[in-house]
């Protein structure tokens, strides 16, 4: 058992902690401002592009009047559907800018002003006058929407619906049935660094200084949108100030910058504003989820049904895999999962930390808590009772399923049985209670390439197009490369985050750590073999080995691989005001081998914190009349402050090792958010007797009116 909380004492000179763990190698650059983020690159003659966005949610642009805007001093051009190059058809309507006069949602880019200064561009953008023919907009997700449909698959390629056994018969015969509907609101990724791109053209080749979670997908998406060869696009993204999924795909600002730069023949920077991040950069779809659980009186699940309704836009399809986690969590002879989608006049949803698992497990783990109450069984024990031997959906063995150990270990550390058994505690106006939920996230890897080079002076170079979006992967990968080469980290140079480097998986789906270490480990091992076979002399240019993990990834045995966790939460609820506060969260996780405990700790704490925000605060407030998210800034869209997060404790089970490459690592970026909101809601129920099925748990949802 490793307590990640111990990994904090710092040896400042060596930049390691007391256990020798490498601390953030780019930390000093980041805190001193030397780290250059996308929009901070500067070119002498660069211009600035500012998007103009629609003020209606549906309709047609009748006229675009640029007369006042184009005479602003410094304005170079104004791009719009009246004045734009023809772009190819594509499947991402969000990137197909200026090709139509149709408005698909409020806040959609309808024009862009390019000027020699940001100030001029902003001013002129405000002077572009657009006349619309407005049509009634349909922005509200509901389960009786006439245009609901079953998508071909849910993200990325899972079956939309699955059925095992006879669910209805099992429910009809069950001793105990839970049948409840849960909702989660739209939630918006808000990384500290907004999306930003500088586009530079040189003889038909495009370089993007971009803020993305990976370059390979970005160069393909941008090339497809512009109709150019992906090999003619280079993406450089050395430092990225957070993504949470929203930078996993290219965003329209990259297309604006590229189109503008080509037209004005100089570098163009385009930075998304905070308000625009509520429309242009993706968000988590709102969900409506019905969960039905059937069980025997002693708590054995006989049926699990999880039916999901969610939204996409009219210009691209995004089908969140909300019920997919339910296919793998608990044993039951009957199981059904379904997803229904409706295309509304809204921005296209996209990835947000643990897409699918995060909202889906809020519903399933809340329902499990309701079942525990109905059966009068401890919620930890209920989960253990229903632990499957094989993956309940596929029948394949699990790779490293240690959910029960997470639950038991967390329960012991949290003094769960005693605190739960004591019942809610009163302290003046405050009632306190405790709750638990399980966490799960797939462990996967994708083909990646890497190059390792040995130099005669004892230096080593490791190159891979991996990303560090603030997670600390630059540090963890350097440490791992040094371990593979059996040298100290200061002998190794690691180059990442540039599409010119060997192609690798993006930082997404918690796949980075496994995918990248696999390639790095293989490259380093093959380089060592080359050196062992040689006469020991290394030429001045070094000896390099480049590898890909394509064959190894393809040859992976058919095993169900997941990270697991158990989260224990204490809440306090004020009976006068309905305020909910969370004094303590404790998570125990099983996630393969932890590459770097310091970086992993911050990822898991970050995930749990974001789950706390989801539970209590995060909510896109929809104005159905105006067709948009009203609270589109961080003063109104609340996320947890430090004062909301007094104490989060994280532990990982020792001895974890996945079969994803030599390192045996699994990503930890997402598993921490999964289940956190359910654990909070379950604790609120324990404290108050109120079951909140609609997130967030606002005080007005607890106050009797």
């Amino acid at each position, binding site marked *: 058992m490793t307590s990640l909380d111990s990994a904090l004492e710092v040896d400042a000179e060596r930049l390691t902690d007391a256990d020798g763990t490498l601390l953030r190698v780019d930390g000093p650059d980041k805190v001193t401002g030397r780290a250059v983020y996308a929009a901070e690159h500067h070119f002498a003659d660069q211009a600035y592009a500012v998007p103009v966005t629609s003020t209606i949610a549906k309709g047609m642009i009748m006229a675009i009047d640029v007369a006042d805007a184009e005479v*602003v001093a410094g304005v170079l051009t104004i791009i719009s559907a009246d004045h734009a190059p023809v772009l190819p058809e594509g499947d991402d309507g969000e990137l197909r800018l200026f090709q139509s006069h149709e408005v698909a949602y409020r806040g959609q880019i309808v024009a862009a002003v390019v000027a020699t200064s940001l100030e001029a561009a902003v001013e002129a953008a405000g002077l572009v006058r657009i006349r619309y023919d407005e049509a009634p907009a349909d922005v509200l997700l509901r389960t009786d929407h006439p245009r609901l449909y079953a998508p071909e698959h849910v993200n990325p390629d899972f079956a939309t619906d699955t059925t095992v056994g006879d669910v209805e018969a099992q429910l009809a015969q069950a001793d105990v049935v839970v049948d409840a509907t849960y909702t989660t609101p739209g939630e918006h990724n808000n990384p500290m660094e907004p999306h930003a791109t500088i586009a530079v053209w040189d003889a038909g080749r495009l370089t993007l200084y971009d803020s993305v979670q990976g370059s390979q997908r970005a160069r393909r998406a941008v090339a497809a949108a512009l109709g150019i060869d992906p090999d003619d696009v280079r993406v450089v993204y050395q430092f990225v100030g957070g993504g949470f999924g929203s930078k996993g795909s290219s965003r329209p600002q990259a297309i604006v910058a590229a189109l503008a730069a080509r037209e004005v023949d100089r570098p163009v920077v385009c930075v998304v504003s905070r308000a625009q991040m509520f429309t242009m950069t993706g968000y988590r779809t709102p969900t409506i989820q019905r969960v039905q659980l059937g069980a025997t009186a002693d708590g054995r699940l006989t049926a699990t049904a999880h039916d999901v309704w969610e939204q996409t836009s009219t210009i691209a399809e995004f089908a969140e895999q909300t019920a997919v986690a339910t296919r793998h969590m608990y044993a039951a002879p009957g199981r059904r999962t379904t997803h229904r989608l409706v295309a509304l006049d809204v921005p296209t949803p996209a990835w947000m930390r643990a897409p699918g698992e995060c909202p889906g497990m809020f519903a399933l783990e809340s329902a499990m808590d309701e079942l525990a109450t109905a059966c009068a069984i401890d919620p930890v024990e209920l989960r253990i009772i229903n632990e499957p031997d094989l993956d309940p959906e596929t029948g394949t063995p699990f790779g490293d399923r240690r959910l029960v150990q997470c639950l038991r270990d967390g329960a012991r550390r949290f003094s769960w049985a005693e605190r739960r058994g004591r019942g809610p505690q009163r302290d003046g106006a405050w009632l306190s209670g405790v709750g638990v939920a399980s966490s799960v996230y797939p462990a996967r890897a994708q083909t990646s390439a890497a190059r390792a080079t040995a130099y005669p002076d004892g230096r080593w170079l490791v190159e891979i197009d991996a990303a560090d979006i603030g997670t600390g992967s630059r540090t963890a990968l350097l440490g791992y490369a040094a371990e593979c080469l059996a040298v100290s980290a200061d002998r190794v140079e690691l180059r990442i985050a540039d599409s010119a480097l060997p192609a690798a998986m993006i930082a997404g789906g918690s796949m980075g750590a496994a995918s990248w270490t696999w390639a790095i480990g293989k490259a380093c091992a093959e380089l060592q073999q080359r050196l062992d076979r040689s006469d020991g002399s290394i030429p001045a240019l070094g000896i390099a080995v480049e590898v890909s993990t394509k064959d190894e990834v393809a040859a992976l045995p058919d095993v169900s691989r997941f990270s697991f966790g158990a989260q224990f939460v204490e809440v306090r609820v004020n009976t006068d005001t309905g305020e909910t506060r969370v004094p303590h969260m404790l998570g125990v996780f099983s996630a393969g081998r932890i590459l770097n405990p310091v970086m992993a700790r911050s990822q898991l704490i970050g995930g749990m914190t974001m789950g706390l925000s989801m539970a209590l605060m995060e909510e896109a407030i929809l*104005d159905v009349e105006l067709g948009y998210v*009203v609270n589109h800034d961080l003063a109104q869209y609340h996320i947890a*402050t430090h004062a*909301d997060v007094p104490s989060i404790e994280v532990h990982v089970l020792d001895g974890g090792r996945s079969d994803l490459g030599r390192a045996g690592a699994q990503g930890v970026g997402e598993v921490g958010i999964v289940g956190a909101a359910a654990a909070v809601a379950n604790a609120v129920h324990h404290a108050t*007797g109120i079951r909140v099925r609609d997130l967030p748990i606002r*005080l007005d949802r607890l*106050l009797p*009116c």
Partner: protein
Amino acid sequence: MTPLGYARPRDVADALDRAAAPGAMFIGGGTNLVDLMKLGVETPAALVDVGRLGLDRIEELAGGGLRIGAAVRNSRLAADARVRQRYPVLAEALVNGASGQLRNMATVGGNLLQRTRCAYFQDTSADCNKRVPGSGCSARAGDHRNLAILGGSPACIATHPSDMAVAMVALDAVVNVRTPAGTSRTDVRELHRLPGSTPHIETVLAAGSLIESVDLPAPVEARSTYRKVRDRASFAFAVASVAAIVQLDDRRVRDVRIALGAVAPRPWRASAAEDVIRGESPSTALFESAIAAELADAEPLRGNAYKVPLLRNLVVRVLCELCGVDPPVRSLA
């Protein structure tokens, strides 16, 4: 580019003179005005900075009161030993507002005159009678979860977002105002107008007036507190708040002053509740009937109806605690 004038005058007369120019606005810490300029809600032609007018002092008044300069920063006011000792309710309210960084910038005058945080007021693509008179109100049919239940009108249900001003209203503070014509005094509780059909006229101050200072009357022997309810633990505007000052006299409430925040277009002095309580023996039942009297005219909408029970619970709890009465034990289920 549209030019923006900026002046930093050294005396009040000069400041008043500059503020008389078309489109000129005073700026204090800028923590609200600069945001509104970025949003296009305010488009001043010139800013007149009131930071160098010598209005940054806290002075003793005869009789034990304090005169607080309009340019005194919120953080300094909250930390002032005299304020903490004589007017703890004000210090409490101040540190409950905004964040440390904002309090370091925000001024007393600016805090009083800050604008509502109604989402539609801050969004030039929505309808707002306060921002564009006669354009309508998007909030009434839209999101009004944190808007007014008291003192609103069909034209506007915006709330005044200040914490500080709520405490000042409870303290019977008075603003000293300068105009080119001379000086005048206005109770803080009368400073903000109710919206009626003219929500764009927010205060009783004539155009070009400058708040020079706020007078706090001599403190009384009393118990007081400021309690703020919000959606997260810090750095959020109130959904409801209360400043209460109670003078107990041999088992009776000799005097009580109650001000409510985030429930009305101005810091709301709960006079009806005070009248019920004054002179009576404190009890839960008394406090329940007092707040019921205050809320008799409440006009909650679908989205903010929760503020009625919230205010009731909050005010009863606070008064019970100040008067040493056992508060009611409530459950939520």
